């Protein structure tokens, strides 16, 4: 997946996470702010990295502001931000 522009998804509401992605300058850089950073910061970064890896994104700069999102919400918001940044539709994303 090629990132063409900055893509963002999510909100600052409780239980959500706001994610911004752009292509960065090589490598993956994650800047995370979280209300639960001391407990779950490492896990949140892992989930973000998993989605990037699944999509074959090796260069990206991610800024995330977490408000206590579940893993499935983090996955969804990162995926939407990536799809928006790559200007790809979501057809081909869905698996049973």
């Amino acid at each position: 997946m090629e990132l063409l522009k900055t893509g963002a998804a999510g909100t600052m509401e409780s239980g959500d996470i706001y994610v911004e992605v752009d292509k960065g300058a090589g490598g993956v850089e994650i800047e995370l702010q979280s209300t639960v950073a001391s407990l779950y910061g490492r896990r949140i970064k892992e989930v973000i990295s998993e989605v990037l890896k699944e999509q074959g994104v090796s260069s990206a700069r991610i800024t995330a502001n977490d408000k206590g999102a579940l893993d499935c919400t983090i996955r969804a918001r990162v995926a939407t931000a990536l799809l928006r940044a790559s200007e790809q539709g979501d057809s081909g994303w869905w698996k049973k």
Partner: protein
Amino acid sequence: MHMKQRLRRTMMFIPGNNPGMMRDAHIYGSDSLMFDLEDSVSMPEKDAARMLVYNALKTIDYGTTEIVVRINPLDTPYGKADIEAMVCAGAHVLRMPKTETAQDVRDCEAYIAEMEKKHGIPVGTTLMMAAIEGALGVINAYDIATASDRLIGIALGAEDFCANMKCQRTTTGAELQLARQTLVLAARAAGIDALDTVYSDVNNEEQLVYEATLVRDLGFDGKSVINPRQIGPVHKVFAPAAKDIEKARRIVAALKEAEARGSGVISLNGKMIDKPVVIRAQRVLELARVSGIISEED
């Protein structure tokens, strides 16, 4: 396969782009949860809501609660993507909004079947329900209700219906009377459920109970709700009264006695009991069981 026939006293709306409400939506005890990708989601967020609901359904265990997703109409840029994503996510039921004709149902069904085949899911797994929200849909209610074997029910959407009818919602519900009766008649003739519209003032429990009682008396199976606070009052309305339970018990006991005798004639206190009376009695006991009024052994 998902269950076509089950209890649907309440179906709680969850806005599709609100993760905070998705996490524990099932703990309040509504019979069904309805994740909304349609009216509660703005156009620029349709992609985000679809992705969020897909991931939630893939991950969160909602137990035995029925999972319904309200998709966007097929003639919008979002409808087909909603269907593919939700078929893959394993939604039990897809709710079609603004259904006007039987052809709307057939078109939607054909695309669901196409997506099931594409993804190796047995054709027919995904069930459907149709929301009727305009005059044309009410007129075509029976054709809609019988347009697909996948349909579990039809539902009334009162706000859009009133806009279409150029009338206002009233406290008596007079403006919805014909639509409600037409829908419940069509649903019964088709052998599927009839589900009533939402009541959107969460602070007015008295009016909610009035509406729920009205539709229960018309024969509806349940009512859509928008807030966990509305679940208890609606379940209470649909729970049978003690005297009805007692009568139902006597009827079912008479049925068992007749069966034990090998007789097809059921009688109670010297009166013959017809089959419809037995069916109603069994329904009363089923409602009493799920309402926690009587035990599973009763």
